[in-house]
């Protein structure tokens, strides 16, 4: 590598932006803050584009060592960056979508008093996310991993004066810590048994090993622990509970962190560790099952939510489940493909939802929306693009990625496929439900007094006519251009972003899969040779669909047809229930009383966790740690010491009367005692 790419600049640019805004933003004007935030983020994006322009002339994987970090015996870790096809995809997604959301935030957050703080955090997030993506070892990745958790915490609790936001931030942070615990132990195991955390070293040492076919082993343990970490960050069962609550944060944050980028870090990590997972079939099965269950579970909850952002949150959890399902059937490139398209369309959906909320002056309840189609046409059309994309209607992005996952899942086991298709149907249903409830029918909201769920959006924009009236959202209005442009760009990406993965069965050649191929194929042949896929044994495919036999291609087309049909069924059902017969859902809810109740209350999982985990923990902490150890023993010791000292001094201080002659008396007495002692000693 003669000329360096200076990869290290990419994460450092947003960090510089965060530092400048964080330290000086309070006094700077909003324009200056905006400039700093956008320029540094935009430069990172430009750098990423530059890197991708030079990408094909590099010898991959490209590594760049900045500085030595830890040297302890045989163990060594550097500050070093790593670039291959996988990191490049992540890099472009993070900087690209991140930059668009930065632009959008300018409009969305303009009237918030914490404007500079918001952008400082957002840039900080970009820094950590980029270090996570570009790290060349697990430790640096872990730093980024923790850092995005921190940024997420700060941004969820951005409106920290609101109690629910503060506790949602805490919840996210604590739940993530549990996952990180698993991740860390996995890393310790890696150090202990492979003596390194650098990707290339670890994978080189693992690659010669045989798959652990007979149940559990070291690699399986590491795999499951890593998956536990990923489940925390990417909101999978059993640690998904924080993500819906994270919607307390500003909507751009939900879009950037809790939909497009951070939550996909778990998928990225599992894909990055594919060498480990491929040799631990049981761990892979665990990944697949967790992903599948989460996808189904979250989708069913999403059906009964009424808060527009909560629907999208559960949808995110569900889509992340798909990605893990893909990883779990060793179709890593399909998972990353879905990750990318999901970043486009879910970012778009969240931003559009933000635009809707903005238009309604902070209203988030879909029951109070409706008929917004003509009033905010731009938002309507972008939202439509996102909805059709996520529902999997061809030829939008979501169709290709979801279809590929389902097809690969079918090759592993038809059960995976069946549940996957059912989830696809649910996805389509709740998304179109959202779409119909928001944009069609009659407006059900109360125009007179807007509900201020999101404090920031109550006030209008400076370039809007009614800027001065604080609660002056008398009428519904379209968002400003600075918010619409990112929406349109994302809509285009959501529309066309899937074409890079046009599958072979539809006459394409799945360029995306081929592009990522070198990353995941390095060890793949061995897998296919040594253990047949569990369940329905599929012909060895190795990630490229071009080499498929024709009969297989026809089956694949049939399955594609089925999943499209499922999506259309969801559309039809949502149309029936929420547009043509709006009285029906209530009847159904009454008819399915218990079930509906359970779903509407998210299966009481939060309550279950509260009784099983949180309450005992708080109780024992209160009783034993706080009252017992802290108050009685630690504070007790300190207080006793102080009390004792005061007691003694209370008695002794009478000596200090301030009466000169009493002092003289004490001196005389003392010297008399000394003299007496000396005389007595002399007499002895």
């Amino acid at each position, binding site marked *: 590598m003669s000329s360096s790419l200076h990869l290290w600049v990419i994460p450092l640019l947003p960090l510089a932006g965060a530092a400048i805004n964080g330290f000086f933003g309070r006094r700077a004007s909003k324009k200056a803050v905006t400039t700093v935030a956008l320029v540094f983020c935009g430069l990172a994006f430009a750098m990423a584009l530059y890197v991708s322009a030079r990408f094909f002339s590099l010898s991959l994987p490209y590594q760049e060592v900045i500085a030595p970090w830890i040297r302890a015996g045989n163990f060594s870790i550097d500050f070093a960056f790593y670039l291959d096809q996988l990191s490049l995809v992540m890099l472009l997604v993070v900087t690209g979508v991140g930059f668009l959301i930065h632009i959008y935030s300018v409009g969305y957050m303009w009237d918030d008093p914490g404007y500079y703080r918001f952008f400082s955090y957002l840039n900080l997030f970009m820094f950590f996310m980029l270090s996570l993506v570009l790290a060349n070892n697990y430790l640096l990745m872990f730093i980024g991993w923790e850092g995005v958790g921190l940024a997420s915490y700060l941004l969820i609790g951005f409106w920290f004066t609101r109690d629910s936001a503060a506790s949602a931030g805490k919840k996210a942070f604590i739940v993530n810590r549990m996952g990180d615990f698993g991740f860390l132990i996995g890393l310790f195991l890696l150090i202990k048994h492979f003596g390194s955390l650098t990707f290339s070293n670890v994978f080189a040492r693992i690659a010669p090993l045989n798959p652990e076919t007979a149940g559990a082993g070291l690699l399986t343990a590491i795999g499951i622990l890593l998956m536990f970490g990923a489940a925390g960050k990417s909101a999978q069962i059993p640690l998904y509970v924080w993500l819906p609550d994270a919607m307390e944060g500003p909507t751009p944050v939900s879009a950037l962190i809790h939909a497009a980028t951070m939550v996909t870090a778990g998928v990225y990590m599992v894909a990055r560790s594919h060498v480990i997972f491929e040799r631990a079939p049981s761990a892979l099965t665990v990944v697949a099952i967790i992903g599948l269950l989460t996808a189904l579970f979250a989708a069913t909850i999403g059906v009964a939510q009424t808060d527009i952002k909560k629907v999208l949150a559960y949808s995110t959890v569900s889509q992340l489940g798909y990605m893990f399902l893909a990883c779990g059937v060793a179709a890593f490139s399909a998972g990353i493909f879905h990750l990318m398209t999901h970043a486009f369309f879910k970012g778009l959906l969240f931003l559009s939802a933000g635009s809707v909320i903005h238009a309604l002056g902070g209203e988030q309840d879909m029951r109070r929306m409706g008929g917004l189609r003509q009033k905010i046409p731009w938002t309507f059309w972008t939202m439509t693009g996102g909805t059709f994309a996520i529902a999997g209607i061809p030829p939008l992005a979501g169709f290709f990625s979801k279809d590929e996952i389902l097809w690969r899942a079918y090759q592993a086991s038809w059960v995976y496929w069946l549940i996957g298709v059912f989830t696809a149907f649910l996805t389509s249903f709740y998304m179109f439900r959202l779409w119909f409830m928001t944009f069609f029918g009659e407006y059900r909201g109360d125009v007179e007094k807007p509900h201020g769920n999101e404090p920031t959006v109550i006030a209008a924009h400076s370039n809007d006519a009614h800027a001065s009236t604080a609660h002056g959202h008398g009428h519904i209005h379209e968002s400003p251009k600075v918010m619409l442009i990112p929406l349109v760009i994302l809509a285009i990406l959501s529309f066309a972003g899937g074409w890079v993965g046009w599958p072979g069965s539809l006459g394409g050649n799945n360029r995306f899969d081929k592009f990522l191929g070198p990353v995941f194929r390095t060890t793949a042949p061995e897998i296919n040779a040594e253990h047949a896929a569990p369940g329905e044994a599929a012909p060895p495919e190795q990630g490229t669909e071009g080499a498929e036999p024709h009969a297989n291609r026809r089956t694949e087309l049939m399955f594609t047809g089925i999943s499209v049909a499922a999506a259309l069924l969801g559309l039809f059902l949502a149309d029936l229930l929420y547009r043509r017969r709006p009285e029906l859902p209530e009847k159904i809810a009454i008819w399915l009383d218990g079930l509906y109740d359970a779903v509407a209350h998210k299966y009481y999982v939060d309550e279950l966790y509260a009784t099983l985990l949180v309450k005992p923990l708080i109780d024992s902490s209160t009783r034993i740690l706080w009252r017992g150890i802290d108050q009685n023993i630690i504070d007790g010791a300190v207080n006793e010491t102080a009390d004792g000292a005061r007691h003694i001094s209370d008695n002794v201080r009478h000596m200090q009367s*301030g*009466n*000169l*002659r009493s002092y*003289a*008396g004490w001196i*005389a007495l003392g010297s008399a005692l000394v003299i007496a002692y000396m005389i007595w000693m002399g007499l002895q």
Partner: protein
Amino acid sequence: MVPLPYYLMLSGVLFACGVTGFLIKRNIITIFMSIELMLNGVNLSFVAFAAHWHALSGQVFVFFVMVVAAAEAAVGLAIIIAVYRTRETLNVDQVNLLKL
């Protein structure tokens, strides 16, 4: 020749008188005089020892003490006069502005 213990006893008695006077008297002049008494009691023991041991250092020491006592008397009396002028009393118990 008077033996040493006599001198020492007298010295002790003088010193004790000084201490007692210092402790029980309130008039600042009297207290001052008691201090002088203590100093002189000590002086007496110095010269007695000096004579007994035929060592001059004791006598030299007495001169020092006397010089210090003279200086002290000068400063002390000046202070007393100043106190009397401002407070119009010589009672030490009433000179208590610095007391808490």
